């Protein structure tokens, strides 16, 4: 069996591992357009800060590919997929046969049309790849006025600005929405976050966009003009607005695409033997109860695993995922899970705030918890994400959750399950133990 995996990151490697778990002999080829072995992509901002180095940014061990007998093809860009002849076509003309194909192309940065923006300039760029981080590291050294503009106040933008700030630049974040992390946070938590950023020397210009970038003779930025007419000095311009599924190479392959790649429950696309996963696929969102693109690391790993298991011939279904994220902004940990801003009137919001240190918010739909924001104190947040994902009824715990006593739910529930002194199990089997845990989790 010949397996080909496009994408050498979380989804692709998780898929390769799953294949290897069930098929010890199959030939697995991993294709990537980047000339690096698998690296921890979201850590490129930590690379700028120096928390991650050239030694520790690699996602897997050095001997990962040899040990699992995967065949990496790095620095090769896939230009199209011929699903009829079952071939993957590489830029240099090489054709690779496959029996089962996995597509995990991830996303490409989206750049809103801005006058003057030129990705070729060494002082301007996006922020999703290792090369981008290296480019910014060089750019920071060349910056004359030590001024940087980051367009986009989402996760990419915040992390990019934290990295640039660590390189000694003064950073201004320009965000279209009225607050930073606008899609995940609400007003209160957004303000606390913005304040934390400002205290640490990162300015935020919310409700603004960059309309024009003024260039010098060599094509590098001098300043930017904002929507309000304000002009800001800029040596470096980073656009971190977001990513779009990287699916342009699938044109003409017959794989159904609607925003992202459409997959069924087994992660198979509309074409037989072609599977997909990661940031480019549309999966079922268990919170909003509709298909959605959720581009986060844990889900990419899960999707890759389900796809790989099916590719190796073992049937497995993916139940769907939900959006959740964790980030730390200058010592302020933030966790957002599921629906953080109520979508309709039937959903009730409960909040707890202790000045600017701790903030908790719960969104209930009836008795079911559907979303949460935890800021400052994130202990036990995983319990909440498990509850939300499974849609458990827990309205009676709301006060305890708000007071940060999230463990009380586990104590009550697991006590019942684990307490074998009450003894209702007859056959000793590890798997039938905790209904709340293990295999039921996904």
């Amino acid at each position, binding site marked *: 069996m010949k397996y080909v995996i496009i994408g050498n990151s979380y989804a692709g490697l998780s898929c390769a591992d799953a294949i290897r778990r069930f098929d010890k002999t199959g030939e697995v080829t991993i294709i990537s357009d980047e000339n690096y072995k698998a690296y921890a992509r979201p850590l490129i901002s930590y690379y700028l800060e120096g928390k*991650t180095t050239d030694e520790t940014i690699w996602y897997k061990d050095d001997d990962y590919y040899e040990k699992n007998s995967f065949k990496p093809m790095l620095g090769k860009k896939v230009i199209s997929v011929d699903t009829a002849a079952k071939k993957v076509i590489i830029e240099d003309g090489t054709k690779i046969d496959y029996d089962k194909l996995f597509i995990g192309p991830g996303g490409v940065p989206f750049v809103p049309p801005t006058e003057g923006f030129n990705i070729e300039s060494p002082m301007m760029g996006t922020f999703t790849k290792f090369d981008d981080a290296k480019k910014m590291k060089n750019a920071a050294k060349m910056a004359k006025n030590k001024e940087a503009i980051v367009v986009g106040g989402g996760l990419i933008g915040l992390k990019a600005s934290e990295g640039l700030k660590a390189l000694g630049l003064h950073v201004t974040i320009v965000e279209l929405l009225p607050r930073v992390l606008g899609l995940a946070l609400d007003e209160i938590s957004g303000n606390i976050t913005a304040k934390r950023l400002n205290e640490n020397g990162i300015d935020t210009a919310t409700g603004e966009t960059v309309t024009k970038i003024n260039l010098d003779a060599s094509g590098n930025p001098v300043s930017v003009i904002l929507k309000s007419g304000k002009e800001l000095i800029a040596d470096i311009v980073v656009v971190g607005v977001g990513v779009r599924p990287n699916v342009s190479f699938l044109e003409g392959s017959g794989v159904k695409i609607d925003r992202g790649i459409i997959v069924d429950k087994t992660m198979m696309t509309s074409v037989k033997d072609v599977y997909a996963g990661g940031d480019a696929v549309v999966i079922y969102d268990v919170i909003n109860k509709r298909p959605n693109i959720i581009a986060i690391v844990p889900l990419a*790993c899960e999707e890759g695993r389900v796809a790989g298991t099916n590719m190796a011939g073992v049937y497995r279904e993916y139940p769907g995922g939900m959006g959740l994220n964790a980030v730390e902004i200058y010592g302020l940990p933030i*966790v957002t899970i599921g629906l953080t801003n109520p979508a309709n009137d039937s959903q009730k919001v409960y909040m707890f705030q202790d000045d600017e240190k701790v903030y908790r918010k719960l969104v209930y739909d009836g008795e079911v918890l559907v979303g949460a924001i935890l800021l400052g104190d*994130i*202990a036990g947040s995983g*319990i909440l994400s498990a509850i939300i994902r499974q849609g458990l009824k827990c309205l009676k715990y709301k006060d305890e959750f708000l007071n940060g006593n999230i463990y009380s739910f586990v104590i009550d529930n697991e006590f019942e399950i684990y307490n074998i*002194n*009450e003894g209702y199990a007859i056959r000793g089997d*590890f798997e039938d133990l905790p209904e709340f845990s293990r*295999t039921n989790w996904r």
Partner: protein
Amino acid sequence: MNKNKLTNLKEDLKKNQIEIMLYPSRCDGCESEGFMACVKACETHMNEKYGSKYTGARINIKKKAGKFFPVICHNCEEAPCVDACMPGARYKDMETGWTITNYKKCVGCWMCVMSCPFGAIDRVEKDHFASKCDGCADEDTPKCVEVCKKGALKRIGIKNYSYERRLMVAKKIYGPYIKSNIKG
């Protein structure tokens, strides 16, 4: 030894998979002694193991209205914390089967804290890392198990475990007529 072969713990541990088992109903938080023995032992052991950085207990006891629950890694089969780990610091050790962490890679993104359904991963603010029990796979017996005198934490093989559970049920139904030959 032959007589008790099925329940011989040494044989069982040698042959079968080993797990740390949790019996929360037996945990009383060592209240009478004034401290939690397992937490103390873990803390001491981690100090010895890691030196100055990456210390702190990996086990915690949470209390609610007279009930105590030792919060410890359950070593999930397809662990959410491994999936969520962005730097690839947390991984499954193929030899021991435990989910362990390479703390040098950990950057403190708290993705695992957010994903652990047991709340067993702690955010350590001081050294900026996510600490989790590594099962003391390189030790003969984990320190927390060693010091637990209440029988709430046990290191046990599968044979022993299933035997024990059968006995428990039998005991419940037939009461005092059945005697367990397992101590603890």
